[in-house]
């Protein structure tokens, strides 16, 4: 019997383009933050991209197009292919509580090609965070031309604060995500090469 891949090729390609684009955005964003830090710390220079504010902005305003195109392609694919409906159904709170309890006691199953409630919550959450990040980014890039958008977030300074806070949420997701991949290395392989899904759809 031919089983579907854990991750279709399109998802794998968009995932790694997204990793590169988001990496450029985060590391250049740290350099931009360092030009005028709004919190009492700066990011270490070795962790930043761009070398100086002008270079970092050049990276940030270049990679944003890649992130934007990748994100739009992912959303279109996600809706059109049924990926969101099938794999990223918003979990019920009871499912999350159950699966989170199981995860914290290391009893949660990690089946390739099937997301548990905690994964669905986190993946759905990070997709929402990236959308919020693009919107707050547009608001602080063009607070006059997109004045309605900046107004939606409470004006330029607040939109800038939300942009920073959302970055921390995305970085926190990445840390948890990478830690889980370290714990379940076969998930990394399934995001690179074609690996059959471990269970058939039963739901």
């Amino acid at each position: 019997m031919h089983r579907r891949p854990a991750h279709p090729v399109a998802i794998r390609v968009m995932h790694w383009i997204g990793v590169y684009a988001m990496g450029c955005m985060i590391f250049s964003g740290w350099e931009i933050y360092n030009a005028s830090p709004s919190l009492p710390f700066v990011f270490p220079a070795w962790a930043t991209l761009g070398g100086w504010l002008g270079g970092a902005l050049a990276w940030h305003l270049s990679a944003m197009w890649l992130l934007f195109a990748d994100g739009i392609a992912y959303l279109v694919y996600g809706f059109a292919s049924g990926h969101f409906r099938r794999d990223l159904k918003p979990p019920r709170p009871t499912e999350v509580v159950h699966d989170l309890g199981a995860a914290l006691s290391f009893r949660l199953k990690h089946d390739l090609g099937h997301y548990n409630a905690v994964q669905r919550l986190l993946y759905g959450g990070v997709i929402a965070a990236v959308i919020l990040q693009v919107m707050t980014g547009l608001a602080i890039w063009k607070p006059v031309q997109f004045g309605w958008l900046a107004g939606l977030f409470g004006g330029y300074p607040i939109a800038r604060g939300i942009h920073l806070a959302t970055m921390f949420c995305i970085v926190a997701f990445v840390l948890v995500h990478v830690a889980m991949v370290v714990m379940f290395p076969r998930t990394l392989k399934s995001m690179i090469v074609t690996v059959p899904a471990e269970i058939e759809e039963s739901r």
Partner: protein
Amino acid sequence: MSTQRIKPAVSMAEIKPELEGLRRRGLLRSALTLGALTMLTGCDLSTHSGVDAALEAMLRFDDRVQAALFSRKRLAETYPASAITRPFRFNAYYAEWQVRLVPDNWVLNVGGLVADKRPWTLQALMALPQQGQITRHICIEGWSQIGQWSGVPLSVFLRRVGADTSARYVYFKCFDGYFTSIDMASALQPQTILALDFEEKPLAPQWGAPLRLRIPTKLGFKSAKNLEAIEVTNKYLGGYWENQGYDWFAGV
């Protein structure tokens, strides 16, 4: 003793564009740090010329997108007097103690594609229609502050000197060594003013005396202080920061 100077084979003016180009490349090259190296395996790491070219091409693309997004009718938000930021932050490419005082016999020179190239005294500028604004000044570094300026709308001034408003750029030269240029559409936006006053008082030297550009639809570094000349031109003349890698359009 001979005082005769040997005429150089090449004058500075002839190689200026090339020098600017080299300077610009060097500064964008410094944009490559360890972070960049880890992201760029496979690129030409010995010169990074390909990366520089790609980043520059993307900035030019961004400039075109920004020009397309810009509408002359869209106004920057204005604020009540109670919202003015105090104390107002000084900012320039030099420290505050290096602020230049207004030269004696200061006049504003006008050049390029204009019908009337007579220089303007402060008194003549003060006699033109004035307009005030309380708007947000947004720095490319991310911080922002609300200030109050008033002066002559640039569109009024350009019409008064018979400028060719179909020209592409308006260039600003300052007596503190700074310079910048903006697109004509932004120059004609009604909130773009040649400011004479800051907080209802004549500009003090650190705020750009005696005349500065105030353009709330662009990042702060476009609001050039201490003006000495304005030129209407079809030639791209860049700017102090723009030539080092800041995006030229810099719209907000």
